């Protein structure tokens, strides 16, 4: 899982040409300062940093296009950067080059309440968007753990705790503005809700992790804030009963908005980190119900019945806004809570997603596998859609432990693929899952490679990520 540090660096004269052009155009916004470059050389996953040669803070579509044009002319890699919360090494400049920081492109461009949509610049974060939507009666539901940018969320096809009700970025991006590999500004999709005109370039760029173009604006679907929301917590005697509760609820079609599993290790971590009181370190489900007053009561009643049949304890309700916020904040902080279990440790998060009919097998086998390794690894997941994460903790100074951790993470991916699932439900491929991609898709990887070559013939867009260009790159 080490970032493949490449011998392929931009030629010094090519880099000099690009630097000259960038400092002329961007002045102080083209930064070569080591600490800024360091900050832009990695996301939140493994600290396999690879520093870009320069970081440019762009403000407009045209500026991004100018950076990409300069890079294309000199064949220098260009890597888009939001706020650096990705988990799979997406932003590491493994071949050097220019990092385009989009975080200052942070304007909400328009909100159309009557059409339930909006358009934002790529650097707007999900929390910022929802803060700006306050008072309109609308919200944007996709909520990965981190307060990521919407551009980054589109680029990695992110998801969150309520995908089971509202879908992932795949369903919620209506259109994009993309700077293509030759520095042109292209708009894909539109504000129309459906279109069968032309190939679906919007969805091709969603999830392409900056390897086909740089997303600079995102058109998004919005939803009405539900009339009533209530959240509840139920604790279970063992992992199997918690997972079975989820499966039965999904099978019955209870339209729950969020259903999150925390195993005993994760619950323990969250109780300590987020000071949750009155719970036990047992497998736990967090629920949230959205709808009309009567609808919510009905959903919750059904859910309670199912949980009780599987040995779940009484529901603890959180209907007041502050209580709910505290609960979901604890869930969103699960990654940090897990890291706090072993101060000084590193962690990476696996991202298996399987058909719901295989969820129990997959989670339980994975738990046994973890226990056999002796590593500390909490499990947490948006289990309503079959997606769960193992946070694999290890001591970065112990090579043997790191190897053990990497092997475990690899087995988690492969187990999911063998069960008809995927190695990544929402984090993306980055550099860490190139091999798993090949295991998952086989022949189709050839087509992905051909598309990469067609849309980025010089291989300058975030090179070395998402799709192994040479078959040898995939281990």
């Amino acid at each position, binding site marked *: 899982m080490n970032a493949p540090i490449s011998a392929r660096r931009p030629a010094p004269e090519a880099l000099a040409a690009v630097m000259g052009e960038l400092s002329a155009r961007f002045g102080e916004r083209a930064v070569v300062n080591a600490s800024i470059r360091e900050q832009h050389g990695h996301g939140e996953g493994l600290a396999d940093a690879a520093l870009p040669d320069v970081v440019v803070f762009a403000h407009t579509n045209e500026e991004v296009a100018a950076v990409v044009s300069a890079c294309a002319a000199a064949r220098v890699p260009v890597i888009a950067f939001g706020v650096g919360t990705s988990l799979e090494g997406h932003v590491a400049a493994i071949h050097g080059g220019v990092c385009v920081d989009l975080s200052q492109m942070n304007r909400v461009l328009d909100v159309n309440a*009557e059409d339930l949509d909006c358009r934002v610049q790529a650097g707007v974060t999900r929390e910022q968007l929802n803060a700006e939507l306050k008072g309109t009666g609308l919200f944007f539901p996709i909520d990965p753990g981190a307060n990521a940018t919407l551009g980054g969320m589109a680029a990695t096809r992110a998801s969150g705790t309520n995908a089971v009700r509202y879908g992932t970025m*795949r369903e919620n991006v209506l259109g994009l503005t993309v700077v293509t590999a030759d520095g042109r500004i*292209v708009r894909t999709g539109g504000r129309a809700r459906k279109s*069968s005109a032309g190939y679906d370039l919007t969805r091709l760029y969603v999830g392409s992790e900056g390897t086909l173009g740089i997303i600079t604006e995102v058109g998004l679907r919005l939803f009405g804030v539900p009339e009533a929301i209530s959240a509840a917590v139920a604790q279970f005697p063992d992992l199997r009963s918690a997972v079975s509760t989820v499966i039965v609820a999904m099978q019955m079609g209870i339209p729950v908005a969020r259903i999150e599993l925390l195993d005993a290790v994760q619950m323990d971590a969250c109780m300590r980190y987020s000071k949750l009181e009155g719970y036990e370190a047992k497998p736990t489900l967090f629920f949230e119900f959205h709808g009309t007053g009567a609808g919510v009561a009905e959903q919750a009643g059904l859910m309670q019945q199912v949980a009780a049949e599987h040995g779940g304890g009484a529901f603890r309700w959180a209907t007041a806004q502050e209580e709910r916020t505290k609960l979901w904040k604890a869930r969103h902080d699960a990654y940090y809570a897990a890291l706090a279990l072993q101060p000084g440790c590193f962690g990476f998060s696996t991202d298996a997603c399987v*058909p719901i009919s295989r969820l129990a097998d997959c989670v339980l086998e994975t738990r046994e596998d973890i226990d056999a390794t002796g590593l500390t690894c909490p499990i947490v997941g948006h289990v309503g859609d079959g997606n769960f994460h193992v946070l694999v903790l290890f001591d970065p100074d112990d090579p043997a432990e790191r190897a053990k951790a990497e092997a475990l993470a690899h087995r988690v991916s492969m187990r999911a693929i063998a069960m008809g699932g995927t190695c990544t439900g929402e984090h993306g491929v980055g550099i860490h899952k190139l091999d798993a*991609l090949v295991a998952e898709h086989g022949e189709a990887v050839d087509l992905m490679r051909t*598309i990469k070559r*067609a849309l980025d013939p010089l291989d300058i867009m975030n090179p070395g990520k998402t799709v192994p260009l040479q078959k040898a790159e995939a281990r």
Partner: protein
Amino acid sequence: MLDSYVQAELAALLPPSALLTAPEDTRPYECDGLTLFRERPAAVALPETEAQVAGILRVCHAARVPVVARGAGTSLSGGALPDRNGLVLSMAKFRRILAIDALARTAVVQPGVRNLAISEAAAAHGLYYAPDPSSQIACSIGGNVAENAGGVHCLKYGLTVHNVRRVRALLVNGDAVEFGGASLDSAGYDLLALVNGSEGLLAVITEITVKLLPKPQHAQVALAAFDDVEKAGAAVGAIIGAGIIPAGLEMMDQPATRAVEEFVHAGYPLDAAAVLLVESDGTIEEVGDEMAEIRRLLTESGATSIRVSRDERERLLLWSGRKAAFPAVGRISPDYYCIDGTIPRKALPLVLRRTAEWSKEFGLACANVFHAGDGNLHPLILFDANREGEIERTIAFGDRILGLCIEVGGTVTGEHGVGVEKLSAMCAQFAPDELERFHGVKAAFDPSGLLNPGKAVPTLARCAEFGRMHVHHGELRHPDLPRF
């Protein structure tokens, strides 16, 4: 005519009854649901195994014979229009439902399975397949994927692309490849989304895993009458703007309701300028709450009468009018031409007003039925092909509506696909940069260009030609391209 070597090679792969070359045998394949365009293919193959399809593709690829895959032939855009030098590859014999996994809520089906047959088979498990194009009793799921079909319920439940998990397909050289997977997401580029709506230009689909949904416990539909079309359009905005996403939200204007009422007697008010059908589904409590809110919004928007279905029989009766709208219009006019523009919902009143004005200007009646909730218009222009000049006027009227759709930020096709019908309109909607990207995608899958040639994505040369003819608002489109 096929080259005799090619014909012999195909004959070796298929039983005699599965390879048609005589004109009387190939004639039934000369058009699909868009009968304005016709072409007889050199041959029609009717394979029944994936190995046969692969063999056919290998033969055609080696001999550079174009291949047009065909499902049930219900396309409204000429997607299955044959190539005169090519082969029609009929997938009609791929009619098996291979598996239903009630727990994972998926079904694995062959491409020739009818849309409705999936829901019928899943009904035993309390499940159904959500996208429901009006042709669902006849159209095949393979064609639905190829066209990214919608339907009256896609407002809430999404288009085909949102309801398909995995597609197995053969590339132009006969190699098998799988897109997507059984779980919710899948790693890497979203090739599954590319194949949805690719109109047979990228690969030949041989197997599909669709998502099934639990049948809602309860559903009710409200029929609301308005004395003014724009008020009905505004009511649509009020409902959506209130954050309600109904299971279906359909509008019909007076010419459409009158045609329908004479045909199916669904009880639509004949004096209304427009009617809305608004459906709510879910648990009994949810439907009750939502229907009360919908009723309130409809009243506030000026509905002159509201009728809510009291039982399942009445619900189906109210829907029967909408579902029968196309054949009903077919009864009152010798010919009709269906437009498929989609616009942001906000522009609905404007587009309706203009359409009415142009209907007078062109002297052609126009019945409007549409998926109002997602802004997908289906104006049906009534004409008589035998009357001098009416075809031309019809096409000019249609082009004008589509031009307006693009102008207000919409698209020329919401769910019927481009096919051969809307190639020129594509030039107006997409800039050369985007068209180039489309060609790049096509070349990645099918560098030989043999799969369904001449459809869906216009060549830049064609757009240059189109631009020369259509100087828009005094501006020449694509001025950088050479003219011919």
